[in-house]
């Protein structure tokens, strides 16, 4: 996956965010979004280790060892930021107070099930806040490449990897397509760049509805 592919996915996902929303960004492609928003104050970034109002990465001499995000990277806090403990942070998440969670995934099913924390038979020892976020956030946007590095479609009929949650995803953004979950069914709503419907069908491990007239909601 080239950096261009990642940033094109992140840029498309960023268009789904509305000014003033509370947004939690996962590790990987979602973390490219702040650099693409231009004005990072248009949304409020929440990080589950206890900060609302995450600012840019610290410059030279601004590094604070007590100030990190959930990826354990040094960050800054914007004016108006608030700190809180982990129980309150996850009460915000579980309680439906986070407008949008943007996260990567290994698989998403046509029913909106998502698998993003473990590979069967190995790596089942780190879940972090993934399950809480996909269950609790009001909108869940998955950003991922259409295919895995081994060439398997990531949008599938049924997840075969360990589930993070059932029926949790609202939007899937890949480098070639935007899908939306509508009444429990997956709908292709946008072809990205010069992608064709045939290409997206070939890259998708399940059938889906097509409604390309629905450009993203204003």
């Amino acid at each position, binding site marked *: 996956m080239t950096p261009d592919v990642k940033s094109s996915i992140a840029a498309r996902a960023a268009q789904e965010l509305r000014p003033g929303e509370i947004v939690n960004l996962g590790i990987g492609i979602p973390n490219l979004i702040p650099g693409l928003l231009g004005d990072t104050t248009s949304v409020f970034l929440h990080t589950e280790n206890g900060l609302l109002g995450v600012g840019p990465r610290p410059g030279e001499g601004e590094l604070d060892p007590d100030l990190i995000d959930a990826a354990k990277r040094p960050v800054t806090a914007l004016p108006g930021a608030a700190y809180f*403990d982990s129980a309150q942070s996850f009460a915000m998440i579980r309680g439906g107070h986070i407008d949008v969670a943007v996260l990567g995934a290994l698989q998403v099913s046509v029913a909106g099930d998502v698998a993003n924390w473990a590979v069967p038979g190995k790596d089942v*020892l780190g879940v972090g806040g993934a399950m809480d976020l996909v269950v609790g956030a009001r909108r869940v946007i998955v950003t991922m490449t259409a295919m895995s590095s081994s060439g398997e479609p990531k949008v599938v009929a049924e997840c075969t990897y360990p589930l993070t949650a059932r029926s949790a995803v609202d939007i899937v953004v890949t480098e070639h397509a935007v899908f939306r979950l509508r009444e429990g069914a997956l709908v292709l709503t946008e072809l990205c760049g010069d992608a064709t419907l045939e290409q997206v069908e070939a890259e998708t491990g399940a059938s889906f509805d097509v409604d390309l007239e629905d450009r993203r909601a204003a």
Partner: protein
Amino acid sequence: MVGGFGLVGAPLKLIDALVEHSDADELTIVSNNIGEPGRGLGKLLRQGRIKRGVSSYFTSNPEAVAAVNAGEIEATLVPQGTFAEAIRAAGAGIAGFLTPVGAGTLLAEGKEERIVDGVPHVLERPIHADVALVYAARADELGNLWYRRTARNFNPLMATAARVTIAEVGEIVPIGELNPESIHTPHLYVDELVLSR
């Protein structure tokens, strides 16, 4: 029970003391991570003194993952929000709670599931400890604690959830010098203070 998110807000000097001056072993460690290789709780892991880890993210220490896979330590993996709430519940006298998080996944195996308002929930039990080791930037002589920035994380929860709470602190100020409206952990939760320096 050991505070910190990774090494941030972890009571590193108390962990060092445990590593160097105690022979307590077969420990159950409740902490979001099991340190990093050779750092924080990673030191205790290398000594082979951890019997079981309760954590949301073992993965930040590959040596912990290897120890679990080799059968050297038992691992209980808990979603991070459930982990936090279960510790909070322990300190608050709550015997259990129902959360939709984890329902229908591997992490609900062996736990009671219950449908509430049409939504599957998991019954989660509190997580108690014998001893909590926490870190706070500032304390007063009574043991009131103030945490700094994202070093707060699990510390105030853990301070409530153990029979004995030992706080490592960056400084100790006289009684009355902490603003009563800025105290995160009131002193009744804190048994011992240890200065970092």
